[in-house]
């Protein structure tokens, strides 16, 4: 398919300022939050209305041109990285809040609405939208749905999938899928859950209905400093064993603390090896009781210092530092490579120890900042892309970390998605039957395979190439390779 023809068709369909064709202007669209992976697109369309989105998709369908949906471009797995010969459909201009329904405590949003903008818009009603990825200031709700994003508060309040109640999806077949909305449960197959985390490969989301929750009247944030990472890890399990589900339970190690402190000046203890941030929320009496219990637990488990932030400003500062920790690490090294493995909580200390050994082995520093309560690790491998070979080293080490996670009974990605980044590790986690099942499922939505192709699900050939040595469920994964 010639670029010229598609370009002409799109030019005829979209206003001038909604189509980017100049190669220089296309460059900044070649990557998302994961800059190590880049590919300039053919074209970028920035539609302003849903019908323009539909028109772009129609042209792409008729000419079999791949479509890459893009929200705010904060993704960390290359999900919105363009594909060669493809059109990027940027949804940033569809950024209106269409409806706030106070009777049913739901809101209807266009996909480009920023996550934080939802809570800001409904704050006057005492409501908020619970999932709060650290990138919430910038990331879009459409991107959140596509990645099933979590946040520092999802231990108690769930991931995107738990907080989205309706979607409108433009499918690549030209069909429009309406799922849920104001109500709470759907008939038929749970396509809504399936759309969450589908990385833009099943269609383009153009409307999102989200659940709004009442803002908890009282919050307390405890900051506990530990002299050992393992002690902090142990405390995480203890808190949960005690029957508590904190609103957030996060951990940062020394490097991450230093970087975050340099940005927010929140008063994190710089001499600690690890800190835990534990937020308790709810009605006053309950929070008081829980906070006392957690404080006692933390001290018993060897916390060298426990501070409690009661006032909203101090709390906000503590969270700001946590939420800005990834980019703040940019102060320590020019580049970082962010991992996203999830493991059972009880193996935290052990896996962190192994990561530390890898850090020594590869001679690359690692900053750890993560959702401890969910067992969702984010080791940030610090490197310098300008030093030849460092990126490759960082990637190799990252791969090893993810394999560690799988071996510990966990998964290669908790919330950032597979994108193009973790395709190889998908071969470790899934066998060929499972991968083929994914492929058939995708074909049910996108038979032509033009929705964000080449992401999330590796081809069997790729898996075969990177080595059929991985053992899955006690079986070699590619026993039926002879089929192709």
């Amino acid at each position, binding site marked *: 398919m010639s670029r010229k023809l598609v370009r002409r068709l799109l030019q005829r369909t979209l206003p001038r300022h909604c189509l980017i064709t100049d190669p220089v202007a296309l*460059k900044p669209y070649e990557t998302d939050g994961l*800059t190590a992976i880049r590919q300039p697109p053919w074209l970028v369309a920035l539609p302003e209305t849903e019908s323009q989105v539909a028109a772009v998709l129609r042209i792409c369908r008729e000419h079999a041109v791949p479509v890459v949906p893009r929200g*705010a471009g904060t993704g960390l797995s290359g999900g919105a990285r363009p594909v060669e010969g493809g059109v990027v459909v*940027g949804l*940033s201009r569809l950024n209106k809040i269409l409806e706030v329904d106070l009777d049913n405590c739901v809101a209807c949003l266009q996909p480009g609405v920023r996550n934080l903008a939802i809570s800001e818009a409904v704050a006057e009603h005492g409501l908020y939208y619970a999932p709060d990825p650290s990138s919430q200031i*910038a990331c879009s709700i459409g991107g959140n749905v596509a990645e099933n994003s979590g946040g520092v508060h999802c231990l108690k309040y769930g991931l995107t999938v738990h907080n989205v109640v309706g979607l409108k999806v433009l499918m690549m077949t030209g069909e429009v899928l309406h799922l849920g909305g104001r109500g709470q449960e759907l008939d038929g197959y749970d396509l809504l859950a399936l759309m969450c985390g589908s990385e833009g490969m099943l269609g383009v989301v153009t409307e999102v209905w989200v659940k709004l929750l009442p803002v908890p009247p009282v919050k307390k944030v405890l900051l506990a400093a530990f002299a050992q990472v393992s002690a902090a890890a142990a405390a995480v399990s203890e808190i949960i064993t005690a029957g508590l589900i904190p609103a957030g339970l996060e951990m940062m190690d020394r490097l991450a603390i230093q970087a975050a402190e340099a940005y927010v000046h929140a008063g994190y203890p710089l001499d600690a090896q690890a800190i835990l941030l534990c937020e308790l929320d709810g009605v006053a009496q309950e929070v008081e009781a829980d906070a006392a219990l957690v404080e006692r637990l933390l001290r018993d488990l060897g916390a060298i210092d426990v501070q409690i932030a009661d006032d909203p400003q101090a709390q906000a500062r503590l969270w700001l530092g946590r939420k800005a920790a990834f980019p703040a690490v*940019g102060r320590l090294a*020019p*580049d970082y490579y962010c991992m996203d493995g999830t493991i059972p909580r009880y193996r935290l200390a052990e896996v962190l120890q192994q990561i530390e050994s890898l850090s020594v082995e590869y001679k690359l520093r690692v900053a750890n900042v993560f959702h401890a309560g969910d067992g969702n690790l984010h080791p940030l491998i610090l490197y310098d892309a300008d030093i030849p070979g460092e990126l490759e080293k960082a990637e190799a080490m990252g791969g090893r970390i993810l394999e560690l996670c799988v071996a510990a009974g966990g998964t290669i990605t908790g919330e950032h998605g597979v994108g193009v980044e973790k395709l190889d590790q998908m071969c470790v986690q899934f066998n060929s039957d499972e991968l083929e099942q994914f492929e058939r499922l995708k074909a049910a939505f996108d038979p032509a395979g033009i929705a964000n192709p080449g992401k999330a699900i590796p081809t069997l050939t790729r898996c075969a190439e990177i080595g059929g040595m991985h053992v899955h469920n006690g079986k070699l994964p590619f026993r039926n390779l002879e089929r192709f």
Partner: protein
Amino acid sequence: MQTKLPEAIVATTKGRRAEQILRSCVHCGFCNATCPTYELLGDELDGPRGRIYLIKEMLEAQKVESVTVTHLDRCLTCRACETTCPSGVEYSQLLEIARDYVSSNYRRDLLDRLKRLWLIRTVPYKRRFRRWAQLGRAMRWFLPKRLREMLPVASTVEALQATPPVSPSVAASSVLLLNGCVQQVTTPQVNAALRELLAARGIAVVELAEEGCCGALELHLGKEPGALATMRNLLDTLAPRLDEVDAVISTASGCGITLKDYPRLLKDDATHGKLARRLGDKLLDVGEYLLSLDLSWRKQDEVLAVALHQPCTLQHGQKLGDEARQLLQNAGYDLVAVRDEHSCCGSAGTYSLLQAKLSSQLRDRKISCLESGQPDVIATSNVGCHTHLAVAASVPVVHWIELLR
């Protein structure tokens, strides 16, 4: 972020600095969220992250493309992105380098060049600017709407004859007040009010007889050599008076920010660099200064609720702003809540002339945020914002100094 700047660029001081800044950006995109032009236009290229990328590409290719210029020109230099950036990326310095690069490696079209030339030759010179302003007022109805809106408000043009400084006989302390070029023409009442306030409290106000421009205008238009000359000139005029005073202040945060930046801008100039640092030691924003004096204030009787507009040059540039809030509260005013406080009003120096459409869209947004709390007045601390907002606001716009008694 990985960069591959060519040797020729890295060999220069600026090139090295640019590389450093580029590499400190991790491409997280947080900054886009608070960038006024990204909010308005929703295009990566009109947000800081995209601009940084365009600059990187430009320096890597050593070639200035017109789309790059288009998107860099749309930047307000409001620096909201710097406030937001967790990685500490000094975007405005990168932009300064980029604009300088553009101005020496790119030929703008004729109209654009003329506009910029006119701005540089007129605005910083208060007599020329005054003449243009008067001429403009006379021909008001023949001018296109956008230019008309730019004109100083009627009363102020007439009330031009600067009030002579009142010096109390026995001064407790003394302060050098910089008047700024545009402010003397458009809103002279601000400094007049300040002089009165200070005089009444026994503080001597020293002013310069022939005060030149601070250089901000040329700097923002990418004319660095000219800007530096203007700065040296001002420093020379200032130098003899520095020892007489306890502090040097400006009531326009747009001038203040540039003045505070002198030591960096002139660091390669031995004599003026030193002068700049001496100035830097005494330089304060008027809010900082007044708050440090620990004086008491009264409020104007008829005004109750104030919407405080924080100029970008104050909140993002100088990381200040609470001082004015504090002073107004001390004086007994109610401050109404203002939505999207971080966001620029679109004035941004010459931006309102060069990017008139975006500028007025931003202004209208800002005014709706400022007026949503139903204030009696809008108070600001920069002359540019002051006149820009006054055109469209439905309540009076003042410098907060004018509210103190």
